[in-house]
């Protein structure tokens, strides 16, 4: 690599950074003011690209020529802004009083709906937009052809940064944004119409996402994978920069863009006798950067730690958890009896489906323990599920009998949770959640790349239980036994002195510390327990499917578990079971009803979230209490 090409790669990194910044800026703005973790941000980005394609094509057909592309970009960004406002007004606005994480579930539902709506409206084929008129060519620098559009993007990022900074620091709207970001109580005290402010900010954030998507069109065809490919990156940039910090997001985008460009530029290098293929690292570069940054700066590069330590728990955690009484024991007994009777009365497939539900329930319960009792949000809980599954599968493939291999599932997850938990419990809130995600992605990439051991992207096959459990209904009973035991143990731990200490730490770390409870050690142990039970679920999963691939520890599995927990109710005793049953059953049934089952699933989740903000399990609990 010559010095000139090194500089050119820096330039490439910068133009990628600009694109990243544009999409992350809206996200950080929205989070800063509304505290909404907007999973649908990638979907808004994707909509921007599709709408810019459609608007540009329509305007061009109307004879507007070269300007049609640029007008299309603007129109698309504005339209996405309006869509964002609609999402906020029609959906999120109704959820501000609800548990914070429920909004996340709602935005997840929006992702499903937008994906299918886009497919219905624009079709399955990728849509390559025109090159940007006026910037379609290249400039020759030092003998290298540089696309003009890349140079344009390098400029756009800083321009948007300056514009947003001006907006935030110099305008009345900006004062309100800052007031709302820094002190929510203050906003109310100042007599600011919070409702309008939130709508405006959400619309602005959506506008930026739409703009980012639209501006991407000359570089990437509009396609249905853009949403998920983007949203994780946008979150990483936002968190690395410090939540709510727009300059931070810019800095983070530059660091990540540069890191990736340099990884590709370095190629394969011999270092200390070991050959390292740097381009392969791009698979996980942003997550590695995030893990390092968060380990050193728990609030991101330019983020500020939250003002006063929180002494009162968040509203969703104030939900009272009644001790399981006779009524709950009765319900549990009835459910167990019904499940035991299932193989005798149900069809074979019912056993298969309920096996999946039970595994999901145990996985969700372990997350509920972390989230509900521990107050620690995880976006990467699948890591422990997956590590457990892989530990069992690898031992089994190495010749261990199933009993031994299966026992290694929780052990493997325990070790992983012990290691990662130590880092994670040093953080709080969304930062903690994102660090769990970073570790999960790092584990995922190792499993994905380590062909010789894990089978790489293909994974492992042939993990079938021995003869006695091979029969579906027999395996179902085995699953029922393990899951019942797991759920009972988790419920028991939640009522133990340790469970109380964990909840105490969540309610008030100050008070817990003042009583002599080691806050971090308690959280760490809670994290490890949650991870271990997730691994147990992973072990059952491996033998129930007969095969494994890195998808078991990928982001969607973590998100699914989160949705199950929230659908079931964060603090409802039977929440994980109810949430897992509802989610898995719907995902099984809906695809048989309609081609657009994802949208239907999304719509149902929206309905559930709006009608039962305490989760379905919470509703059940309320009904039984009322009946009592």
């Amino acid at each position, binding site marked *: 690599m010559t010095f000139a090409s090194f500089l050119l790669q820096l330039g490439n990194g910068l133009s990628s950074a600009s694109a990243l910044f544009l999409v992350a800026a809206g996200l950080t703005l929205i989070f800063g003011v509304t505290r909404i973790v907007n999973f649908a941000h990638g979907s808004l980005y994707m909509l921007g690209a599709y709408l810019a394609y459609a608007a540009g094509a329509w305007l061009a057909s109307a004879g507007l020529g070269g300007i049609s592309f640029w007008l299309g970009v603007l129109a698309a960004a504005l339209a996405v802004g309006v869509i964002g406002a609609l999402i906020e007004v029609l959906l999120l606005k109704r959820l501000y009083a609800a548990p914070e994480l429920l909004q996340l579930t709602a935005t997840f539902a929006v992702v499903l709906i937008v994906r299918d709506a886009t497919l219905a409206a624009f079709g399955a084929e990728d849509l390559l937009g025109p090159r940007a008129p006026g910037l379609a060519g290249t400039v020759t620098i030092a003998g290298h052809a540089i696309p003009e559009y890349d140079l344009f993007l390098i400029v756009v990022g800083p321009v948007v940064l300056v514009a947003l900074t001006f907006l935030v620091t110099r305008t009345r709207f900006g004062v309100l944004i800052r007031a709302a970001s820094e002190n929510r109580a203050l906003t109310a005290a100042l007599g600011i119409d919070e409702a309008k402010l939130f709508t405006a900010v959400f619309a602005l954030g959506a506008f930026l996402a739409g703009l980012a998507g639209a501006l991407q069109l000359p570089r990437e065809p509009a396609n249905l994978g853009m949403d998920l490919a983007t949203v994780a990156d946008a979150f990483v940039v936002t968190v690395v920069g410090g939540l709510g910090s727009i300059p931070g997001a810019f800095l983070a985008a530059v660091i990540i863009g540069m890191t990736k460009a340099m990884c590709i530029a370095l190629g394969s290098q011999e270092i200390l006798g070991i050959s390292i293929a740097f381009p392969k690292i791009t698979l996980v570069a942003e997550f590695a950067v995030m893990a390092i940054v968060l380990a050193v700066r728990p609030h991101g590069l330019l983020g500020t730690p939250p003002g006063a330590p929180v002494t009162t728990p968040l509203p969703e955690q104030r939900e009272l958890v009644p001790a399981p009484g006779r009524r709950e024991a009765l319900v549990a007994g009835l459910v167990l009896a019904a499940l035991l009777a299932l193989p005798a009365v149900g069809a074979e497939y019912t056993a298969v489906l309920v096996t999946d539900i039970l595994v999901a329930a145990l996985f969700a319960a372990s997350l509920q323990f972390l989230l509900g009792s521990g107050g620690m949000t995880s976006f990467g809980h699948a890591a422990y599920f997956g590590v457990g599954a892989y530990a069992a599968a690898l031992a089994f493939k190495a010749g261990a009998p199933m009993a031994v291999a299966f026992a290694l599932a929780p052990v493997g997850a325990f070790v992983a949770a012990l290691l990662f938990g130590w880092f994670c419990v040093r953080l709080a809130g969304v930062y903690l959640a994102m660090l769990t995600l970073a570790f999960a992605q790092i584990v995922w990439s190792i499993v994905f790349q380590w062909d010789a051991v894990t089978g*790489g992207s293909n994974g492992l096959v042939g993990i079938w239980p021995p003869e006695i459990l091979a029969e579906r209904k027999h395996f179902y009973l085995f699953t029922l036994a393990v899951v019942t035991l797991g759920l009972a143990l988790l419920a028991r731990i939640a009522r133990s002195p340790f469970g109380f200490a964990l909840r105490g730490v969540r309610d008030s770390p100050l008070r817990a510390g003042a009583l002599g409870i080691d806050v971090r050690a308690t959280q760490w142990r809670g994290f490890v327990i949650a991870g271990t039970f997730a691994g147990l679920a992973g072990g059952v999963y491996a033998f129930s499917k007969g095969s494994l691939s890195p998808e078991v520890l990928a982001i969607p599995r973590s998100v699914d578990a989160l949705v199950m927990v929230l659908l079931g109710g964060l603090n409802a005793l039977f929440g994980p079971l109810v949430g897992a049953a509802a989610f898995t059953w719907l995902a099984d049934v809906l695809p048989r009803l309609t081609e657009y089952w994802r949208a239907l699933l999304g719509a149902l989740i929206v309905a559930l979230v709006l009608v039962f903000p305490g989760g379905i399990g919470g509703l059940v609990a309320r009904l039984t209490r009322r009946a009592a």
Partner: protein
Amino acid sequence: MSVLRFAALAFALAVLPAGAQTIKLGELNSYKVFPSFLEPYKNGMTLALDEINAAGGVLGRKLEIVIRDDNGTPGDAVRVAEELLSREKVTMLMGTFASNVGLAVADLARQRKVPFLASEPLTDKIVWDNGNKYTYRLRASTFMQTAMLVPEAAKLGKKRWVIIYPNYEYGQSATAAFKKQLNAMQSGGLEFIEIAVPLGKIDPGPVVQAALDAKPDAIFSSLFGPDLARFVREGQLRGLFKDRVVFNLLGGEPEYLDPLKDEAPVGWYVTGYPWDSIATPEHKKFKDAYMARFNDYPRLGSVVGYSAVVAAAAAIRKAGSTDPEKIVAALSGLSFTSPFGPVTFRPIDHQSTMGAYVGRTAVKDGKGTMVDWKYADGKDYQPEDSVVRSMRPPER
């Protein structure tokens, strides 16, 4: 419902005892994850199904396809496969797209002792390292398609290659197969510079720049989909392809070539499907029927979906029964006619001989297409039988 309709329905139900008469194929695929390939695939299946049933079905019974979405994950695929088997009582399984899903379902087929026709997954492992008695694969594998391009590459005698590939099994296998085969055909002095990119997330600027910096004589890429489109556009802008030979596996498939429109690369060596210029009677018949039925031209997915159903029907017909073991036995050495011509499932490794078209890309009437193509019959691009035997586990 009108009385008349009700009567008709009642009659139909009386004559055809519900489902008992139909033979069901259980098709599972990642429809929502890879829609650009699988929507045409679904159309292809529909066309084949209609033709077969119009001609009287199979074994005197109507053929039915029960379609399930596997969500692109092996876990869900295994669940819906179980559902197809135990609830829908399908005669055989077919479908799947991604390699990991294909392998998972193949292993389930072995466990449950049911025939599985893997229509689309390209991984070599599904017939070799992880091959099993119950699994057959329709499409030309990564190895075969690479082997179709290598002779062209060897002829050119280029020494310094940049290899760009999506960083997962397909790209890795293609890269390994290309290097190995080219080394075998072209003696010495070969240099390979590899650039792996995350699937669906290529950063085209740095990748093209790194490729330029490597100053290669030629390029071998296994990119497809949005990654390919981004690579093509960026590479053209920066002059990467100027005076340079480029090979791109799958690059001539309409699914990936058509979105590029008039920016489709010119002169690249690709495998693909020149639907507009294949004049064999089998293909003409297929194409005409397809266009009449769907008012759209066929994509490669259409051919694969169509052929998979035709193959499945042929296997059941040959078995003369819906007994799984008999169908599995029938699949071995089964020959049928696909839109690409005659195809046989090799008894040695259960790979079909369905080939691919090898040619060069061109732009015609503002659209990408393939020229100077020839049909590479899959039977000619296989390793030695002894090699195949050594890779495949003992029959199980």
